[in-house]
């Protein structure tokens, strides 16, 4: 066996491993992409962020600022949901490899 000739098991395993790698990358990207979307939105429509246009705004306007809500959702996903999901995906990959 060398880098050109591998066992059939290994050859079949490689695309599966690559697919799992892509899944990990996608799950890790969801949060940052959402955060980026919120930041781009805040720059595109600054009047929807009360911090930039505070005149005549009420308490609810300070509490609910749509682009910042998007950033918050992205942060929540990236910090709370994604890390455990990536861990479990990688663990499942190792378990599959160990099971053969």
């Amino acid at each position, binding site marked *: 066996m060398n880098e050109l000739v591998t066992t059939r098991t290994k050859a079949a395993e490689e695309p599966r491993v690559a697919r799992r790698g892509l899944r990990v990358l996608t799950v890790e990207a969801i949060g940052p992409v959402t955060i980026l979307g919120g930041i781009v939105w805040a720059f595109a429509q600054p009047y929807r962020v009360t911090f930039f246009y505070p005149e005549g705004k009420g308490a*609810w306007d300070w509490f609910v600022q749509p682009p910042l809500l*998007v950033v918050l*959702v992205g942060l929540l*996903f990236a910090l709370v949901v994604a890390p455990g*999901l990536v861990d*479990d*995906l990688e663990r499942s990959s190792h378990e599959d490899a160990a099971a053969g």
Partner: protein
Amino acid sequence: MLPRAEIAHWLFAAGFLFFALVLLAEAIVGPDVFRRRPWRAYLWPSLLLFGGVWLWVIAIYSTFSTLHLLAHALWAQAAIAAGVVQLAVVRGRLVAPAWSLVTAAGLFVSGISFLVHEQNGWLFARSAFLHHLIGWTLVVAVLFPLGAALRPRWSVWAYGFAVTWIAVSVMLFSDRDVAPIFGHLSELAGRAPVP
């Protein structure tokens, strides 16, 4: 001090966006990996139940219009019914893919409620336009849970369902109580109704 309707819509938009990201993640990793941690498995049924309870709160404050009250009460019931069924699915009490039909019915009822309770035309104002658009989006999205009931192995239904909620979230974030759509705004929009 009650929030304006648009503020309630933006809060729901944020909730739906989080809900959509969770569903998208589940579609990407598959239900087996997603349900390895119990809190994650219970996340989206809990979000549905939480959303249903909040819709009841909105229904209580929608007394300015019978149609609004009925529509929000119907959504609340649909969300709670779908949440309860999903909870039973996660706990393993319900295993048949056909239970996905409850979600399909919930979506259909929600879509029709959106369409029925908007009494103005598409181009009256942005809020009217978005009510029509969200209503039809939900009616078309019935296809995804319906497909999941008939062809449960196809992952396209899970992706489609998640993307639907991202779209609904974007539409709700775009909502303003009175704003033009495509440069057009009815002269009557935003005025006090004639007694």
